[in-house]
């Protein structure tokens, strides 16, 4: 805490200084001055709030700016009488207006009235780009900017959730609903299959790399995505796969504002699994599926250990179904153990129906000519989904920004970001996600507690940890960042110099508590598990960044030239420690110091890296019609061996403003502007792990699987180092991009289209395969190439029907596909069976492709089986005896034997490509309408095409086909094969066939491949702004109430056979526990209903 208090102190000192300077400047400003007032109105005469009014003295080059208030008024108090000034008024969505040569007169009522024409031109709007801003009209690269408004009124633990589907080809995939889920930002599809692995986009917050999940959504001013190599080139090696620039809010000029936002939300699961809850149905199916796997000759002795598999046992169960008042638990007199005859609805038992979340934020900003400040804070609290020991997420954000005009040409700024979160969640001792435990151990026969209140053996082993609250984990993160920067106008309107220095520190701890859980098998037969330990993982990241750059701008008649050059140094060190020990002395006081066990784990880790870069950008424009931009960066990175540490990465882009050509005059009436763009650039990929090129001899304890003792202790050991690759160089991504931007009908209709090809070359993958006698992983080299191509299209329509009614529709669609163009795989081995991260590739492969067998149908008779090709490759039962009702695979190769051949491209037997798991045609649709003070906005998001293979262990899909003791999806039973139901979807009822290897349902096949396309109403928002007269009564500037629904409904073909899945939660299991436990075993996706209020003072 000492560290934090020091930082808080620093923060307050800074605030104090800012305030003092403010006050001081006010006193200093007592020079003879004349007031200039003015009003900004729209064409219809409505006062326009928030317009920026800039005043400039052309002689002294003094510049001030203020903003208009809610009545459209502004005033300047410091202008000198007798001087001629130039005024420029700008507002987003309106054409800028200039008033040149306005003479300020002494003792006169100097006033201005400026009428702004609406929506006529947004080309003057500024867009954030690398190390600066550019007018939208001057852009030559593929850049998309959205305003922070997209995050408004959408309470969420993380802004990434709200960004999904907003920007075309900014691909954010929320794999589940966990509050701490923090997805990687991908731009334009598969990046690298080598060193980068999942090389993601560089995310910069106020120009410094950072984690967007930590931001207060109310602080975000804009989000800019630099997609092509040309616009990202200035970031060099870390921008190889695109850059996301997030800019936080600053003080609005000329006024003091306080904004308060408060909301209350109710969260619910998007999907509530529908399972068979009737014990009798489940028990019978258990007996059937078990016996069927053993070829109907080894019936189960008991129904999963709960009661004997006899008629008498089932009679007792049925009696309880008809008469629910009979006790569900009895005691077997022979063994003294409990027998269970439950019909439990576990979903209802374990989940809460509604979980609350609250979001409160406050921001304060103000300015005068010499200083401004912006301070904000937020507290977000989200409750968990479980009924017992629910998880709980809390986040606090604080931000303070301030600028001081130390002198007329020098501005000093500081930007402090502090935030912390705390996430408590229940865990299982067996390192299996709690959802997988639900599915595999909690069948309806199980009851939660015995008559004496103790846990039953089954409930203990599956949810005992959760129910008792004895096994928990708490993640705490503290993040602090400070950026101090300056801006010096060395030569006014020609040359300026900027610099900044950032220090950031992230401190993350995860504390785990594992306390024994007791249960009883019968009266007086209690036992408990041996889980009895504490663990603590600590990770600290320190990061320093320095930027220093100069920019110059000069117009020579119709020629406009801009230059920018600078340097960047960044340095990061990461240290982690993990401690674990068993033997909790007092379960009520779990503390690292109160342990006496003999089993320890003490381990650490860490890495550090440094990058330095020199960069430049040159823009040239002729009459704003022909635009050329050149970027370049010379980068050095500690992650590479000394001989290939530096790289130079250039890019070139150009734009042609066709609509400004005289030959386009005929279109002026309906087309506002038309621009075509093209760019090409090449960047090295520096987003790689450090030490990839060092021979490492790790010192470690054996893994659990290899655990061994030597002379009574578990040994520490080291072993031979990895073989170091030689002659390595950077992975490169070269992007060619072409685009069109156009707007029509007074900017009511707009669209932007881009097509690109990205060549990712020299991917750092394994080299020429070596014989096994080599005895080590084949060293990686720059051995693979990859080509990704795609497009983005974003049309929008904005229209005012009447003075009071307007509506907008915006669509974003994007697509990309990748193909491997080079890979060392001389034998053409196929990467089957399908996984998300293939074990190998081959030339011509489309990553994500799913190889599998074609399913012909189900065998209907013994004769059908005997006349069909040999398919003994697949296991259908314990002794592998095919029967009617089993799956009939197609003999594609016509060899009479169905198998995977040699599993190579040349001989793949009866395997074929069934589909592709890569999401295609990602789209977002924004609909908005405003009528007077009421606004309605709806946002739909979805995926147009995507295949999904449920995979082994996905019990929510396979039910008892996976394991007889698995819970049963309710919708499954009516679609199981029998002689009476020959056209069923599922085969002959049997356990264990979906479990592993080449079992009948474990092999990838066409019949059970799912279409995981979906469309989802991500956000529906209704807001009402209170009339000004009401606001005035309460002395507030503005007030708004709103209602928001998120993830309210989803349509997906997936739900035909997998209604228990949310289409966004299908890949893997809870990654914090064990991602390999089976698809779908993740924190549920949540739908949210929110009511909120927003007040401005």
């Amino acid at each position, binding site marked *: 805490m000492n560290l934090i208090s020091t930082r808080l102190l620093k923060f307050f000192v800074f605030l104090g200084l800012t305030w003092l300077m403010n006050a001081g400047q006010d006193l*200093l400003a007592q020079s003879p001055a004349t007031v200039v007032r003015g009003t900004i109105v729209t064409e219809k005469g409505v006062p326009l709030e928030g317009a920026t009014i800039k005043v400039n003295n052309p002689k002294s080059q003094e510049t001030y700016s203020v903003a208009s208030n809610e009545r459209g008024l502004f005033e300047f108090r410091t202008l000198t009488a007798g001087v001629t000034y130039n005024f420029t008024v700008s507002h987003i969505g309106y054409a800028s207006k200039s008033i040149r040569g306005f003479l300020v007169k002494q003792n006169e009522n100097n006033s201005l009235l400026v009428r702004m024409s609406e929506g006529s031109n947004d080309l003057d709007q500024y867009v954030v780009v690398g190390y600066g801003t550019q007018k939208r009209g001057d852009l030559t690269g593929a850049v998309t900017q959205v305003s922070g408004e997209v995050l408004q009124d959408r309470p969420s633990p993380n802004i990434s959730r709200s960004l999904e589907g907003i920007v075309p080809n900014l691909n954010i995939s929320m794999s589940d609903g966990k509050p701490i889920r923090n997805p990687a930002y991908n731009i334009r599809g598969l990046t690298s299959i080598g060193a980068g692995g999942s090389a993601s986009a560089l995310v910069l917050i106020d120009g410094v790399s950072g984690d967007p999940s930590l931001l207060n959504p109310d602080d975000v001013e804009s989000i800019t995505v630099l997609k092509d190599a040309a616009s990202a080139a200035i970031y060099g090696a870390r921008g190889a796969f695109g850059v996301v620039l997030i800019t936080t809010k600053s003080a609005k000029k000329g006024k003091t504002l306080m904004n308060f936002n408060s909301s209350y939300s109710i969260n619910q699961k998007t999907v509530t699994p529908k399972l068979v809850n009737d014990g009798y149905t489940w028990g019978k199916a258990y007996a059937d599926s078990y016996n069927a796997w053993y070829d109907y000759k*080894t019936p189960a002795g008991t129904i999963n250990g709960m009661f*004997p598999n*006899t*008629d008498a046992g089932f009679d007792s169960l049925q009696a309880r179904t008809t008469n629910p008042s009979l006790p569900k638990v009895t005691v077997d007199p*022979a063994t003294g153990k409990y027998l269970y005859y439950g019909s439990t609805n576990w979903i209802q038992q374990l989940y809460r129906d509604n979980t609350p979340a609250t979001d409160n934020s406050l921001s304060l900003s103000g300015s005068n000519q010499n200083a401004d400040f912006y301070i904000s804070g937020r507290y977000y609290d989200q409750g968990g989904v479980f009924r017992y020991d629910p998880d709980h997420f809390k986040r606090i954000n604080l931000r303070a920004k301030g600028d*001081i005009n*130390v*002198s007329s040409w*020098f501005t000093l700024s500081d930007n402090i970001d502090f935030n912390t979160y705390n996430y408590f969640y229940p865990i299982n001792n067996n390192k299996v996600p709690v959802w997988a435990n639900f599915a595999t151990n909690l069948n309806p026969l199980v009851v939660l507690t015995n008559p004496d209140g103790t846990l039953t053996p089954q409930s203990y082993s599956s949810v005992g940890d959760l129910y008792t609250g004895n096994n928990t984990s708490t993640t705490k993160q503290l993040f602090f960042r400070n950026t101090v920067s300056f801006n*010096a106008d*060395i030569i006014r309107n020609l040359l300026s110099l900027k610099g900044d220095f950032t220090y950031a520190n992230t401190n993350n701890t995860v504390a785990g508590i594992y306390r024994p859980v007791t249960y009883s098998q019968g009266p007086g037969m209690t036992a408990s598990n*041996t889980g009895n330990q504490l663990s603590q993982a600590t990770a600290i990241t320190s990061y320093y960044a320095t930027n*220093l750059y100069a920019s110059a701008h000069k117009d020579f008649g119709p020629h406009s030239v801009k230059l920018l050059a600078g340097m960047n*140094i960044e340095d990061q060190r990461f240290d982690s420690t993990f401690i674990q020990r068993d033997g909790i002395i007092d379960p009520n006081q779990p503390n690292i110091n109160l342990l006496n066990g003999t089993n320890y784990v003490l381990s650490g*880790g*860490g890495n*550090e890296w*440094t990058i*330095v870069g020199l960069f430049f950008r040159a823009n040239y424009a002729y009459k704003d019609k022909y635009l050329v931009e050149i970027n370049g960066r010379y980068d*050095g*990175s*500690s*992650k590479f061996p*000394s001989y290939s*540490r530096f790289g130079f990465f250039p890019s070139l882009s150009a734009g042609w403003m066709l609509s400004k050509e005289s030959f386009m005059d005929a279109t002026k009436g309906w087309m506002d502007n038309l621009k075509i763009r093209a760019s090409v650039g090449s960047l090295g990929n520096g987003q790689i792990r*450090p*030490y990839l090129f*060092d*021979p*490492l*001899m*790790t*010192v470690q304890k*054996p893994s659990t699987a290899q*655990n*061994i*003792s*030597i*002379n*009574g*202790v*578990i*040994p*520490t*050991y*080291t*072993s*031979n180092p990895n073989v170091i690759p030689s002659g390595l160089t950077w992975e490169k991504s070269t992007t060619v991009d072409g685009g069109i931007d156009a707007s029509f009908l007074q900017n009511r209709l707009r669209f932007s289209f881009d097509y690109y090809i990205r060549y990712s070359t020299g991917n750092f993958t394994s080299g020429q395969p070596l*014989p*096994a*006698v*080599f*005895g*080590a992983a*084949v*060293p990686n080299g720059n051995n693979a190439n990859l080509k990704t191509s795609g497009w983005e299209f974003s049309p929008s329509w904005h229209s005012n029907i009447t003075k009071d009614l307007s509506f907008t529709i915006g669509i974003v669609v994007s697509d990309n596909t990748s193909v491997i163009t080079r890979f060392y795989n001389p034998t053409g081995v196929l990467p089957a069976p399908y996984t998300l991260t293939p074990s190998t590739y081959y030339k011509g492969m489309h990553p994500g492709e799913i190889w599998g067998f074609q399913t012909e149908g189900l065998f209907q008779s013994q004769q059908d089986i005997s006349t069909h090709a040999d398919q003994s490759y697949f296991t259908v039962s314990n*002794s592998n005896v095919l029967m009617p009702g089993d799956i009939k695979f197609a003999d594609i190769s016509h060899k009479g034997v169905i198998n995977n051949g*040699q599993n190579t491209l040349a001989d793949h037997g009866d395997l074929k490509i069934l589909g592709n798991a890569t999401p295609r045609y990602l789209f977002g649709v924004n609909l908005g309408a405003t009528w007077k003070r009421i606004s309605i906005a709806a946002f739909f998001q979805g995926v147009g095409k995507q295949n999904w293979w449920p995979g082994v262990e996905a019990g929510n899909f396979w039910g008892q086909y996976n394991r007889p003791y698995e819970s049963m999806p309710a919708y499954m039973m009516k679609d199981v094969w029998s002689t009476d139901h020959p056209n069923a979807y599922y085969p002959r009822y049997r356990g*264990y066939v979906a479990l592993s290897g080449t079992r009948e349902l474990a092999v990838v096949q066409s019949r059970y491949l799912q279409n995981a396309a979906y469309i989802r109403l991500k956000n529906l928002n209704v807001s009402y702004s209170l009339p000004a007269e009401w606001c005035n009564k309460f002395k507030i500037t503005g007030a708004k109430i709103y209602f928001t629904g998120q993830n309210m409904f989803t349509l997906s073909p997936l739900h035909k056979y997998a209604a228990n899945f949310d289409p966004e939660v299908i890949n893997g299991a809870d990654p914090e526990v064990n991602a390999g436990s089976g698809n779908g075993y993740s924190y549920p996706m949540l739908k949210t209903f929110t009511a909120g209020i927003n007040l401005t003072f």
Partner: protein
Amino acid sequence: MKVSKQIILSFLVAGAFIAAATLQGCSKYLDKEPFTTLNPGEAFQNAGDLQLYTNSFYVQQMPSAKTIFSGDNTSDYISGNNPPTLMTAQVSANNPIDGWSRSTAQSGSWPELRNINYFLQNNINPAIPDSIRRSYTGIARFFRAWWYFNMVRQFGNVPWVGSALSTTDSSLYKTQDPRTLVMDSIEADLDFAIANAPRAKDNSCSMITKWTALALKSRVGLFEGSFRKYHTELGLAGSAATWFNYAVDASNTLISSGLYKLHTTGTPQSDYRAVFTTSTPWSDEIILAYVYNDGLKLWHNANAYFTSPTLGNRTSPIKSFIDTYLNKDGSRFTDQPNYDTISFVNEMKNRDLRLQQSVRCNGYKYSTGVSAPPDYSFTFTGYQPLKFNVDDPAINLNSQNNNSIPIFRYAEVLLNLAEAKEELGSLSSTDWNNTIGLLRSRAGISNTSMPVTADPYMAQYFMNTITDPVLLEIRRERGVELMLEGFRFDDIRRWKMGPLMNMPYNGVYVPQLSTPYAMNGDGVLNVSFVTATPTSGTIKGVYYYLIDNKTVKLTQGASGNIIWLANIPRVWDDKMYYNPIPSSEIVLNPNLKQNPGW
């Protein structure tokens, strides 16, 4: 707040110079060495470093409990869910058995060899005393010998790689070396280990010493001697005696040290089983074990493996093998005319006491006092393994076996010595008494004298290829003493007795169908053999074993011995003496020769 433009400008200019200077020197600035790992220059500095490295050999190469107790799943006398994988059409050069290129704990995987060779190449730091370096090199060479022995067992001819290869090394593409070269190299490694590895006996039974190396040499010698003798097609029979003599000499050196003996406490009813059920290994008999321990949370799952219908293979020993256990008085069980129609309860009586310590019978009870007869949902033949199981039924469920599993034990050395000597024709009756005799007396057998006539049952078991009565008895003894310890398939290979793998999977004698029996001899009925599961009138606690007359049948139809997996033919092919070389490896190195027949 007036700030001079000049001051700020000069700061900026100075800053720019500093930045430029930093960039000048930035190649140095960009040197960031890993700080949480060793690099090769730091890892061979002192004795502690060497120990740290050699620990990796244990971690990588010690066979786990499961490797050992499931090792005989591929053998003549164990049946299970399915025939041995090796004998199914699933195994081919395209779909080989693990061992060559994939890394599993016991079977050869080349990274383990590279790890040893890297150590041998780098353990040359003169700052460390020579004797210490030699001691650790001895351990490393022990592991290399063990590794190569495992490869030769599986693949026959393999290339000898004596160094950590570079990516361009021509040795990557060499063909297999002659068996003699590889075996001689193993022998050289073992001799070095015997001379240099630590001499002190390790009472924790978990470290490599001179004595472990001798035990391995005894095993290797017997294997290679008999392999060369019986596999006459190799043309190496002339050197078989050399290898038998290696076994004899190594065994004798170990025995004469007096450091080891058979573990006996004078209670033959439990002495044998105790070797496999205690957490702290009996260091009088055990030379090396995989040591499991509750305190360290090191557990295996032998109980669960043999008492779960799904976890293991449902390991079911066959009756033809169970019949080889002698009677307690030393007479042969199979000499009685009706030996194959005796009921289970009776056949278990008055036998070699190792039988009741190896399979459930004769009123076996859990430590809770609950009777635990052979459970027919876990065994197909009626014989349910008990050997590595502990008596606490809670362990069946929680998979927390703490009993250490022997890897090298004195009994094996005695068996190696007896067999090698008999193969050399030099086994005296004193030798007999000091080897087989000792094992039999520990098992409570009263007459342990050396046999003079060949047992016709054993002779027939080995397809009448062996007539030497003593050799037949040694083979019987080896089977009985080392049951389920993973030796059997190697024995079949070296004896060239592959056709044994075709033995029918026979089980207990069933006098009649649809009659409940009390298999634990305690009168509590627990199994009934039926042709259809009864729909009513079932008796509590009775398991209804379905004789479907397809997968499982009785020899006489309505009565007789159980024959399991009767419908799945098993055909031994001599190619199975060696595992196939993966065809993917031959693609990568065309100089590798595929083993014959694959």
